[in-house]
């Protein structure tokens, strides 16, 4: 039986070990991006004022992110909509397509999630300094606290700020990895237990539903936290 972590194996398809090697990860990134685009374009083909179900779905994606930005970023957040929408749709489709048996979950790789979290972190920090100049350093000292507490508060705030990309990336990576390992382990029991394999099989059904839910939820969490960080950069708490 295959090891539960075999599903995370990166398999080069073209280009061997080179830095532009096309791997199964590449393939699933491309599938996620094209599926998302195709779905949106297909759903919107009618451009109906009274939407069909598919069109409603596309509009829900749009409205969810638009509302998220309106509520969490506030004023000045509108212009970041396309970036945040891209981020959300990419993570969402990578997570959900990863639930297809035999597929590869791009977001179960720490390097991918960390890269996205790092880009968010760097962009947000740059926006913070561009908006507030050196005043952005006040992020690390809560307004109104006694000055002597700076000795404690500044390191704490600094660490918490710097740990943002780590927590953001590890949360997504860990959720995706653990969920898939769990599914694989339990699925492994099905052939081992013979007729009693029905029990782990029955358990797999709600677990799969839960994992799909987590796939959507984690995409949402990654995006909403990015919005919260963006809010901090624009409005400083």
């Amino acid at each position, binding site marked *: 039986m295959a090891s539960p*972590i075999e599903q*995370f*194996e*990166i398999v*080069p398809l073209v*280009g061997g*070990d*080179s*830095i*532009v*090697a*096309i*791997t199964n*990860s*590449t393939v699933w*990134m*491309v599938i*996620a*991006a094209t599926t*998302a*685009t195709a779905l*949106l*374009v297909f759903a*919107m083909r009618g*451009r*109906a*004022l009274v*939407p069909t179900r598919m*069109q409603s779905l*596309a*509009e829900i*994606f*749009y*409205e969810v992110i638009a509302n998220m930005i309106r509520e969490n970023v506030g004023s000045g957040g509108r212009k970041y909509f*396309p*970036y945040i*929408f*891209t981020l959300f*749709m*990419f993570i969402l489709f990578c997570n959900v397509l990863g639930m297809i048996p035999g597929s590869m979950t*791009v977001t*179960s*790789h*720490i*390097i*991918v999630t960390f*890269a*996205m979290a790092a880009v968010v972190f760097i962009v947000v920090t740059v926006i913070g300094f561009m908006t507030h100049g050196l005043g952005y350093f006040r992020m690390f000292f809560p307004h109104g606290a006694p000055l002597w507490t700076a000795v404690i508060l500044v390191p704490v705030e600094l660490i918490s700020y710097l740990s943002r990309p780590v927590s953001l990336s590890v949360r997504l*990576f860990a959720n995706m*990895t653990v969920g898939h390992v769990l599914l694989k382990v339990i699925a492994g029991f099905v052939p081992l237990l013979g007729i009693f394999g029905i029990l782990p099989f029955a358990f797999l059904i709600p677990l799969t539903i839960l994992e799909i839910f987590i796939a959507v939820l984690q995409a949402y969490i990654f995006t909403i936290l990015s919005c919260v960080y963006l809010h901090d950069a624009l409005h400083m708490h």
Partner: protein
Amino acid sequence: MPQFDPTYFVSQLVWLAVVLVAFYFLLTRIALPRIGEVIEARTNQIAGDLERARSLKAQTEDVVAAYEASLAEARREAGSIMAAAQADISRKAAEREAAFAKDLAIKVGAAERRIAAARDEVEAQVRDIAIGAARDVTGKLVGTEPDAATIGRAVDQALRPAG
């Protein structure tokens, strides 16, 4: 775990960047404008419909106000017509009553006169009878007949009502 094997880290980063940039352009050039357009069109449509509903409501209110105004006008007119009719009726009634009262007074006067004449006649006859009777009775009792003037005075005195 394969996740911590750095062999394909760079490859993943390179392709992640490529795919994300391509995805961003696909979304912003193709997908998002379509969704945005439709949502905006719907928002405009709804705003237009609401606007139209508001103007129709205003029109309705105008019509209702005009209707109520004309209703009040009609009611006032009806009231004045009714008042005029009532005044006319009461005036005519008063006229007729007055005419009737006058007529009645004339008739009553005539009747009273007739009654008075009849009574006078009756009284005169009673006097004559009384005088005749008195003369006869006196003649039989006393033997002499008193003259007519004396009897007349006595009868008049007896016929005069008491008090």
